[in-house]
């Protein structure tokens, strides 16, 4: 049991646990959606004075910010006190492809060092990549009205056609970038 929990979790257990989170949040009368926090942050910082989209009672969303803070602590606990291995059971094809594009730690670390080690802060090209990725995620999540948790998990669980369209969009955009743009970006990074 302990060994099962400290190894990377298999997909069926991960999926099961996410559905528990969905249930717990429904049970408290809330809904599961993490990207709303970004809107709340904007509102907290006073964006509502300039843009009406942020002019709402952000304090009513305080519960979700607390969930997000918990997620930060959860990531800390999992990475420092639970997980017993650094290796990942990635597919060999992914490992080989990334290796060919100059990413050498696929399967050996949780996130690529080239993007997520502290060296990233001083590499303008990596910074640009992180800024671009984040900006599109934040913009797209609000435009579509939700992210993976709000649309893919909550929305599909409630059998919402709009969420299905959004998830279709997630994959259309993701596949396009992953197959045609990301290789160019990563190759430039490796030079």
């Amino acid at each position: 049991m302990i060994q099962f929990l400290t190894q990377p979790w298999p997909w069926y257990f991960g999926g099961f646990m996410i559905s528990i989170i969905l249930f717990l949040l429904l049970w408290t009368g809330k809904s599961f959606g993490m990207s709303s926090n970004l809107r709340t942050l904007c509102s907290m910082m006073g964006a509502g004075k300039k843009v009406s989209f942020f002019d709402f009672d952000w304090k009513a969303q305080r519960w979700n910010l607390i969930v997000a803070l918990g997620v930060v602590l959860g990531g800390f606990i999992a990475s420092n006190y639970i997980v017993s291995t650094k290796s990942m059971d990635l597919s060999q094809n992914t490992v080989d492809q990334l290796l060919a594009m100059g990413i050498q730690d696929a399967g050996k670390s949780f996130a690529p060092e080239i993007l997520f080690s502290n060296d990233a802060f001083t590499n303008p090209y990596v910074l640009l990549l992180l800024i671009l990725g984040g900006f599109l995620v934040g913009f797209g999540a609000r435009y579509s009205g939700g992210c993976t948790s709000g649309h893919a998990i909550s929305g599909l669980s409630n059998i919402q056609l709009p969420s299905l369209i959004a998830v279709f969009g997630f994959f259309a955009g993701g596949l396009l970038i992953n197959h045609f743009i990301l290789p160019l970006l990563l190759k430039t990074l490796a030079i």
Partner: protein
Amino acid sequence: MKTVLFFTIGILFGIILYMSEVASWFRIYEMFQFDSFHMYGVIGTAVFLGVIIVFIVKKFKIKSILDSAPIAIPNKEKGWKRYLFGGIIFGSGWAISGACPGPMFSLLGAGFLPILIVIVSATLGTFFYGFIQHKLPH
């Protein structure tokens, strides 16, 4: 009390995102390459069980533990433009940063500090949406 409850749910979610490797950039790359069933299995299982959970909550009119009011699960607004266009933009960012909004926070706790740049930038992206919202097709 409520704060403790939500904080605990968050901690559990943060652990799940890390332990199931959903927060890993590599897993997102692999998913878009169709190289592994892992991510599809995680999301598929969550949605399969989620459909059952939502069905039960509605069918038996389960009440909230906090205020004893029947749990309301609102429908998404009708339409398709915002969902398709917004979705494509979101997916593009997901493929680059390898992190959606939940995993971003889990990664921050796990000590991958450059994710802060992604979080700040995603907040700016959200602000920019609010700023040009009325000019976009919805």
